[in-house]
């Protein structure tokens, strides 16, 4: 049950996805499996008040965190 998203590890940092989960954990239940090539996220029990946008907003947040993390790890 629920929704499944597969994030390519070369495009989304697993740590960024963890941060996105932390940001949205009060609105849904998340299960994350980090594989070699992809980070798999299973989302269930989505709060009905945000069910129309939660997955999209979660993906935007994961992208944003990846971009910020990329700055943090860039060589100075």
């Amino acid at each position: 049950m629920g929704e499944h998203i597969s994030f390519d590890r070369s495009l989304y940092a697993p740590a960024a996805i963890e941060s996105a989960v932390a940001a949205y954990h009060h609105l849904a239940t998340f299960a994350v499996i980090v594989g070699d090539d992809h980070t798999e996220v299973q989302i269930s029990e989505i709060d009905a008040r945000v069910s129309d946008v939660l997955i999209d907003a979660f993906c935007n947040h994961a992208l944003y965190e990846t971009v910020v993390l990329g700055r943090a790890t860039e060589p100075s």
Partner: protein
Amino acid sequence: MRTTVTARALPVVPEALGFFRWARIGDRVLLTNDAGEFSFLSEPDFRAFLSDTLSPDHPQRATLQRQGFLRRGLDVNGLAQRIRRKRAFLGNGPHLHAVITTLRCNQSCRYCHASRADLSRIETDMSLATAKSVVDFAMQTPSRHLNFEFQGGEPTINFDVIKFIVEYSREKNRHEGKELVHSVVTNLTAMDEGKAEWLIANDVLVCTSLDGPEDLHNWNRLWAGRGAGNAWSEVMKWIAYFNRRYVELGRDPDLWHVDALMTVTSKTLPRWRECVELYLQLGIRSIHFRPLNPFGFARKTWQTIGYTPQAFSATYEALLDHVIELNLAGEQIIEGTAATFLKKILTPDDPNFVDIRSPVGSGTGQLAYAHDGTIYPSDEGRMIAAMGDDLFAIGHVERSSFEEIVQHPTVRAIAVASLLDSLPGCSDCYNAPYCGVRPLHNYMHSGDLFGQRPNTPKCQEHMAISRALFSRLAADADGSLEGIFRRWVIERPRSRDTQPPQTR
């Protein structure tokens, strides 16, 4: 379904160029750089600029070269000096010290949800012992300028602490030799002649809240309960009193007058013109049209007083154009946030406005002292604590050293999260030399110091104001608008030992 879209690449010879950022403003291209220099180019000239084919006798070539946009003939030392001047605030240390003399307040403003207490709560008054520690702590700042800004609650309810801090800091300053300023941000409804005469005699600058015409002001700023009166009438009465007394004492009214701040609610938006008229009638030369901080409200409250950033920006632009028209007709009135941006855009200096700089002033340009002596990087930190999250409590005036506070990990994190040169979206933004990020604002908005910049209300507000200013400058063929704007950025100190107040 498949189709195509077209986007035309720009030929570029990067080794011919200095570092610059750019944006399209109307039909012009705006270039900016680290020194805050800017130039407008037409689209064809921008292409020529990028491809190093700008003709030697192009009328803007010398300017572009002088400003540092072209590599050939670049005066690196001159550019470095201009950048150094623009960022002179970096080494100064905190200059703005907000002192919460009490949380008690006689008003219950609709937008003040977490930082006030009822009049009976005398335990929220700052003690004289804590006040002494605040002064002893604050005056360790390396900053040569130091502004004690009294806030609340309603700060004048605990007037003894105001008097003590003014007198004790002046006494202490006989040995420190700093440029000392004292200012009070007051609703003027707890004022009396004794307090007023003392503030005047002791050169304490007075800033009040004036949200517009009587019904609007009184709707925004509720005053109920024992002793309540007409808040707007009290503000009118005391503005007139102070301004009259300054004149009677022979002080220049352009320099000595009550300043006012306006907090915009949904009720203000359709009535902005009346607000401007009122400020003009009162001789207040600066209208500071400030949006609400959209945090911590119950949903029902926000539905009553709130609005979208787009609605604010549309009203702001209308007000800005009206203020410009008034100036063209000979009136002397400015809009406060525009003036802050214009100082950055049109002068070689930065006004060191703590909320709009890089890094933000929280902890490095300002500190806030709660009534119990707890230290926060800014008053926003105290408000967050009042909502139950003390993440930004960084020490106490009786137990922390100055070094511990300014080097506190939280202060460092705030600096990192507001350094525009490193932030995604901001580091490339044309507005970076003039803008500022408020991590505590982001934290309240999204629980995150960084925040998704395009989604944050402050980014939307700052970009709207910046675009409004630059689009008008781009269309300013005869320079008349720039002439007006240049008047807006002139600051005159009130006397040798005071500076204009820097209220938030």
